[in-house]
């Protein structure tokens, strides 16, 4: 067995140090070492997107990245979406629209959707479907997920307008 490496990364805004073996994926490291079990293991081949996390703001499959590659990186997992136990607008819209059934794919969808909304506050349905194309869901048929993301975008925009008006 190769020896463990010390890795320092920023995960969900906190600086974290952890030990991992080079053969361990970022997903294994998050789940088994850091006990952040929100990111899910689906296919382990980069097809399903259940393990999607943001690395430097970009969505990647954490099953296809090594834990040691996280050194110095800024990583966001689904655990980083809520603030002090309060769900984000996007998460609430998934609940409102019943955009999940079994829930295994949901953390990955939330992360991909967050990445889209961070870049594009006014996405079209096509933009949403394109951004979520790397995430598979076998329950919902996708429509509710797409509606939830579009509604979240609208809600975040009107929040922004509200804040601007208050100033």
């Amino acid at each position, binding site marked *: 067995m190769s020896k463990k490496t010390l890795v320092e990364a920023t995960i969900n805004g906190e600086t974290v140090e952890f030990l991992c073996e080079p053969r361990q994926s970022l997903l294994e490291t998050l789940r088994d070492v850091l006990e952040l079990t929100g990111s899910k293991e689906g296919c382990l081949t980069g097809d399903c997107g259940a393990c999607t996390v943001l690395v430097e703001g970009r969505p990647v499959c954490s099953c296809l990245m090594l834990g040691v590659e996280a050194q110095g990186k800024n990583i966001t997992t689904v655990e980083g979406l809520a603030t002090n136990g309060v769900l984000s607008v996007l998460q609430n819209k998934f609940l409102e629209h019943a955009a999940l059934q079994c829930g295994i794919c949901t953390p990955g969808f939330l992360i991909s959707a967050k990445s889209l909304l961070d870049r594009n506050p006014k996405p079209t349905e096509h933009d949403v479907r394109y951004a979520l*194309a790397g995430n598979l869901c076998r329950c919902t048929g996708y429509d509710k997920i797409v509606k939830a993301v579009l509604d979240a975008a609208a809600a975040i925009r009107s929040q922004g307008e509200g804040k601007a008006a208050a100033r």
Partner: protein
Amino acid sequence: MHAINYDAPTTLDQAVSILKTHGENARPFCGGTDIIIQLRAGVRRTEHLVDVKKIKELQVLSFDAKKGLRLGAAVPCIEISESDVMRRHYPGLTEAAHLIGSLQIQNRASVGGNLCNGSPAADTTPALIVLGARARIVGPNGEREVPVEAFVVSPGRTVLKPGELLVELLVPAPAPHSSDAYLRFIPRNEMDIAVVGVGAAVTLDGDKVKAARIALAAVGPTPILASKAADAIIGMKLDDAALEAAGRAASAACSPIDDMRGTAEFRLHITAVLTRRVLSIAAERAKKN
């Protein structure tokens, strides 16, 4: 996955030194979207991964109207598809990079990695070949350059010797009145492995073809430069007869297999169809340049 060692050198010298020390037991590592899967499945074995993403020469993406494109081997596909310069000057290579996998994959996978993985079905490899791209390699005995069409030697195997590493892809500047295009056939809309892929680059002189290159994916053990298909249209007006001739010659350059994605017969047919279409697209683009 079996136990491995990992290094992330920051200079070419360090990378070559580590690769040389471990010889056949080491492999350069970039986006990991192929090799992590292969190591897990046991279809490739390596003791030592040398992460090349921190080496600045491998992250270069620069275009000069005279010298052409320098594309570092580790530049992720997303940087190519988001680049206006790439879209304008190399639309075929850009569309090939853009149709690899999901956004999650494009954020990690690189054109250099796509080439080094050595798959006959790699989408960006024919797109590089038609542009006349050369692969700049460094190793323990210095540097060398290899034309991309000679880089892959058999499925999963390349010209890279132990200790060597792909630094960058050098692509000539597009000639006036030229352009490129890439098309692939897959049984669904997106995100699959090519059943057939065809790239073309065309330079026009008035309404006649002055120069052309056509390259094929997934129809033989390696990506194929179909020189005779290009010869069939050089000096010709790109009418239906010329397109038919190029398509026939492209099919004749294939040695496809039957597999779960398609039969050999189907692949030969699709190669001709895509060759006609991709040449038309490249020529339309070339007219505007």
